[in-house]
């Protein structure tokens, strides 16, 4: 049987990808950011998953205003790094897992989540930057990501975006789906985006270190309460783009301590926690949780 064994949470700041692609990781500005992922890269090697279920948001890349899916699951065999305007990132293409992805889609739709199934999608920094942070620099031609990835895109661009509570419930449905897959697979689920940042207007550059860390504390220890955070709190406290944090709740909801919407099992172990300001406009948050 397949099993979700761990969850990884990380910001997916595009400038981090650019710093890696342009060889700037040793600059003073960037050193502390990447140092926060040294543990994580080793952990990825020691705990190599068979599949990563990667929750991210598309940033007006694969999805224009023609069609805006609330939740979209990628069931294709592969996904190309997107050209977001600067040219595609020089990273390996992303290999999917069509069979597990289709299984999850079927199970989750039957659990009353109204997914959009996507068979053609270029993946932007929201998906590739977390992979780069966790796996290090890879040659786009000769290297490969360590395992297949199922991209799961959440609309956080056009309001209304799904509620934290809905995301948290979805995580539970995804775990149920994975649990019912009959092949033995070690699955990691990643929640990406955030933390506090605002990319627009006179309020651009907003960072809220206290709120971010309090939110992290609560997400770990009281995920049900955290999932009830209303949208407006994210906007007001963590900046207009801080709303991306609802995606972390999908990964958190998929952990095994959550049963029927409540904390009922043993708490996950916090293997690693990191917080740094800034990366470009953004506060970087990162967490690794292992199921017990």
């Amino acid at each position: 049987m397949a099993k979700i064994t761990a969850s990884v949470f990380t910001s997916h700041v595009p400038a981090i990808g650019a710093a890696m692609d342009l060889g700037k990781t040793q600059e003073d500005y960037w050193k502390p950011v990447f140092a926060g992922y040294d543990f994580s890269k080793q952990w990825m090697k020691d705990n190599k998953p068979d599949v990563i279920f990667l929750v991210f948001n598309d940033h007006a890349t694969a999805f224009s205003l023609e069609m805006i899916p609330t939740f979209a699951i990628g069931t294709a065999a592969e996904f190309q790094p997107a050209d977001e305007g600067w040219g595609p990132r020089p990273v390996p293409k992303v290999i999917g897992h069509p069979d597990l992805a289709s299984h999850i889609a079927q199970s989750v739709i039957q659990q009353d989540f109204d997914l959009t199934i996507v068979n053609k999608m270029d993946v932007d920094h929201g998906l590739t930057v977390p992979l780069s942070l966790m796996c290090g620099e890879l040659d786009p031609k000769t290297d490969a990501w360590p395992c297949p990835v199922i991209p799961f895109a959440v609309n956080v661009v056009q309001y209304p975006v799904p509620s934290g509570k809905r995301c948290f419930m979805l995580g539970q449905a995804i775990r149920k789906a994975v649990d019912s897959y009959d092949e033995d697979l070690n699955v990691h689920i990643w929640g990406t985006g955030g933390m506090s940042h605002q990319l627009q207007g006179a309020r651009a550059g907003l960072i809220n270190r206290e709120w971010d860390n309090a939110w992290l504390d609560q997400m770990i220890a009281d995920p049900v309460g955290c999932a009830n955070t209303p949208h407006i709190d994210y906007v007001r406290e963590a900046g207009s783009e801080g709303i991306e944090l609802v995606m972390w709740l999908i990964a958190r909801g998929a952990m095994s301590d959550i049963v029927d919407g409540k904390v009922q099992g043993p708490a996950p172990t916090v293997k690693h926690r990191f917080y740094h300001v800034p990366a470009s406009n953004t506060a970087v948050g990162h967490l690794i949780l292992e199921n017990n």
Partner: protein
Amino acid sequence: MSLEKPYLDVPGTIIFDAEQSRKGYWLNQFCMSLMKAQNRERFKTDERAYLDEWPMTEEQKQAVLARDLNWCMRTGGNIYFLAKIGATDGKSFQQMAGSMTGMTETEYRDMMIQGGRSVEGNRYVGEDGDAQAHRQPQGAAGKKV
């Protein structure tokens, strides 16, 4: 329009909702077209001519030509779409975000290194934080006045 909008009292912030999306539809779709290298070339060769291929309002076109991202946003632009213009110009997200504050690139970068903009005074319209309307533009631009 009868969408509930609990987010109108946040200073310096436009939430991209259905109404903004409708207003900015062609502006944003124009931005999407810049994800193709050949369209970026065509745009750079003759910006006005390229813009005229799109059913955007004249104001939207002016806002793009002026590279005034705040103006673009008021006409319905969304930052993730508008970022494609910045990418075409070789600008980073930090340069784009900073440009909306009136600060110089260095001022904005320094603010970020020092921990970013504080939320104090910037939660609700009418407080006295640096993102409030009466304190614009910020940085050197604001001091010059």
